[in-house]
């Protein structure tokens, strides 16, 4: 069963399509190809070899696998290299401010619940200026998907230390090595209450597409940490680095993603440097659909019809005015 919002979902719900065959036919017509998501006229501004290219391709493939149409998706991004994402995908996009993608996405989704909202931003964007919004979005459990491109560096501003850079990182902003301990994105996501938390390296295209699609289908706030090589400013963590270390966590023996404690135990081992051979667990690390409802489930005002689709031409306030008489 597909869980994303498509216009067919809406039609079905409204009872306009009853015939099962008809639904299947429409569903098929509805599907897209990767090229339907391309923006060929928008020349990429990323460095050749940047990890963002693979993420972009994975994203388009995930959209195709979900059988949704470009106009049914809105990518809301922050500012940074990752923030340029919406320009390279044919769908709706809002390129917001540095660190403010989540609150804008909240507004987009609350006003039009029928849109599939994806948030894209960098590690600086999400965990620097955007940290407060991150915490509140996780506890809000709005039905949006957040792809956080973690290259452990400020790419767009040419290589300063980011909140996820390991301690001791030497860059132009910390020439003697950074002093602060880094933020662990997965830990932040889980402890703040996100109901779907994953980590992917797009070098494993098959897994990344699958996990992204699942994140989109998840009802609630889904966070995917995208391990993203920045070949220009963080060259030691290049494709080779991740290829050698990333493993599919779902193939490990004790895999138990519906158990928060299992996921947190993994986080603690990672933080303590106890992982053998520096392997990096990729895949869905925590996923609980039944933990709690989404924010929109609690809003009767848009339960039947998205706010943007409601008629506002003649709102009646006379009864209210009576009360002020």
């Amino acid at each position: 069963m597909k869980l994303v919002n498509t216009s067919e979902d809406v039609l079905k719900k409204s009872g306009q399509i009853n015939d099962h065959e008809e639904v299947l036919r429409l569903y098929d017509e509805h599907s897209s190809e990767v090229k339907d998501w391309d923006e060929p006229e928008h020349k990429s501004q990323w460095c050749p070899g940047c990890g963002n290219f693979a993420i972009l391709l994975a994203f388009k493939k995930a959209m195709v696998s979900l059988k949704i149409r470009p106009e049914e998706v809105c990518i809301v991004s922050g500012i940074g290299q990752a923030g340029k994402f919406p320009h390279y995908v044919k769908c709706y996009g809002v390129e917001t401010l540095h660190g403010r993608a989540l609150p804008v996405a909240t507004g987009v989704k609350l006003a039009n619940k029928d849109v599939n909202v994806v948030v894209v931003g960098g590690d600086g964007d999400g965990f620097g200026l955007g940290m407060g919004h991150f915490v509140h979005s996780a506890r809000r459990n709005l039905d949006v998907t957040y792809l956080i491109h973690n290259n452990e560096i400020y790419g767009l501003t040419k290589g300063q230390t980011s909140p996820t850079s390991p301690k001791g990182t030497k860059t132009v902003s910390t020439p003697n090595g950074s002093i602060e301990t880094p933020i662990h994105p997965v830990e932040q996501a889980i402890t703040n209450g996100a109901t779907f938390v994953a980590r992917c390296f797009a070098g494993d295209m098959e897994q990344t597409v699958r996990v992204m699609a699942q994140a989109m289908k998840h009802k609630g706030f889904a966070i995917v940490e995208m391990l993203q090589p920045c070949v220009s400013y963080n060259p030691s963590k290049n494709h080779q680095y991740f290829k050698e270390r990333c493993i599919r966590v779902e193939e490990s023996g004790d895999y138990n993603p519906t158990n928060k404690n299992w996921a947190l135990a993994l986080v603690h081992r990672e933080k303590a440097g106890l992982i053998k051979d520096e392997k990096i667990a990729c895949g869905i690390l925590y996923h609980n659909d039944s933990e709690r409802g989404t924010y929109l489930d609690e809003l009767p005002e848009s339960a039947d019809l998205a706010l943007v689709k409601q008629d506002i031409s003649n709102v009646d306030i006379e009864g209210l005015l009576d009360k002020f008489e």
Partner: protein
Amino acid sequence: MQNKISIKVGGPAGEGVFTVGLLLAKYFKLNGLEVVYTTDYPSLIKGGHNTCSIRAEDGPVYAEMKHHDVVACMDKLAVQEDVSSRNHTGIVVTDSKLVESMNLQDDFYVGIPIDSLIEDVGKRFKNTIVFGAIVGLISVSEEDAKEFISQTLSKHFGKKSQEIIDTNIDVALRGVRFVNEHVSHKKLNKIVKIENTTQRVMMTGNDAAALGALKAGLKFVSEYPMTPSTSFLSFFAAREISHNITTKHAEDEIAAINNVIGAAASGARAMTATSGGGYALMNEAISFAGMSENPVVIFECMRAGPSTGLPTYTDQGDLMHVLYSGSGEFPKVVFAPGDLQEAFYGGFEAFNIADLVQTPVVVLLDKHISASVMTTPRFDTSNLVVNRGNFQEFDANLELENYKRYELTQDGISKRVVIGQKGGCHVNSSYEHDESGWTSEDGEMHKLQMEKRHKKLNNIDKELIKPKILGRESDYDITLVSWGSNKSILQEATKYLEQDGIKVRQIHFMFLNPCDWEYVDEILRIDVEKNSVMLFEGNMTGQLHSLIRMNTGLNILEKKLKYDARPFFYEDVYRDVENFLKKRGMNIVGGNQK
């Protein structure tokens, strides 16, 4: 004029000072009078000194008075602080315990044995007894008092049980009876019910603006509480279900405005409300809305700054801040309603204007208009038309072709779509962009897009952006200039100046941007050159003064700037005008002013 009264109530925070005020306001309204009810309170929940003033007359009243016919002092501090605000025939109502302990000998004191009158029902009826005593002093008869007290309390406690209402009525009447029996010698104007045929409502400026927004089809509100804007949040939160609006108490003001931008980008009518500090946090996002052409509406309710300032006190210090907020140059609409009518119709129109010109619209209010309760004719909504401008409503059967969000058009306005519309995909962007929304750093395109954005403001109704001339248009002795809520206070002063033979022309700047500066020059130049213009502003540096000078070169010499965080009193305005004209050799008879 039959009815004319002004009452002040003072007492400790948390002891029902404002309940007495509101009950009196409702009492006067039921008697057909026009009412202004204002509050003055520090930023404390319990323990501070609160006062409120209730003024009522047969005809329109716009502002509170400085001196009062009745001053009710609910504790010792109130006696110390507020007795001086009685007028020369005014009386002071207080607890007879205080009359004794403070040795208050003047015969203007009326002592009420509060404790013994409410012994059986308890201390929480203190405000009801004070209300009853005041009504006793100003009502023509006990029957009359009884009738209106019953109506007032039934209305006030509408949702509570009949028992609570009945006890309150009973207690209030004890107050009436006590003053009738013991203080009949005190002379006071009596309130006589008049037939007021216009349908009227009584509310605050924030209520009026919020009602306008609701009528305009507001669908999404996100706000972070900050006095004096907070009542917007609770107003809409209470109407989420009845009026299908989503109200979000955001994590901070940055989130609030960005929530609103997202909802507006989606296609919904959306707003936030805040005060100066919160607005400062919104700056970056406001220029984002300007760049991305998202119609957002922001109600900025000024309080005295800088910084945290005086949270519960009024001020007009944010005009320049709001006008020039945001990085870079982009169009922004800023207007400041002067009374409840303008707050309501402005609250409605803000959304039409935002949709028309697709840019931020800031409605500037201040604590005085935001939180004062006034009567005003019931708003006529029959002619209000929601106009969404160049906007494609969602249509599942439509596929747009060659859609360009930022198309360069003659009037600068390009079509908006609902996110989700087939054929409408584009990036709504904070970066400079080409017509499609794709990032562009081309100098020529930047110029074209800058011009496109700026010329959008030319589409706003030319009449709307002219300052309003009130009262006389010609044959006047003096011109009084103000913006925002001072409109009402100057109107009040004008009423008395005119009674004393001083001919007044009043100019109210509602629109600060855009504003028809050529017209301003036309109506002011001769008078400024004759030095017969006075400007009144609630700030220290004369921000409207600077704005007028910047845009017209006119330097209004006589400026009255009030920055003690309190509203102007019209009595002071009257005196200022009188003194100014006397200095200029005018012979003023005077006397009517009160």
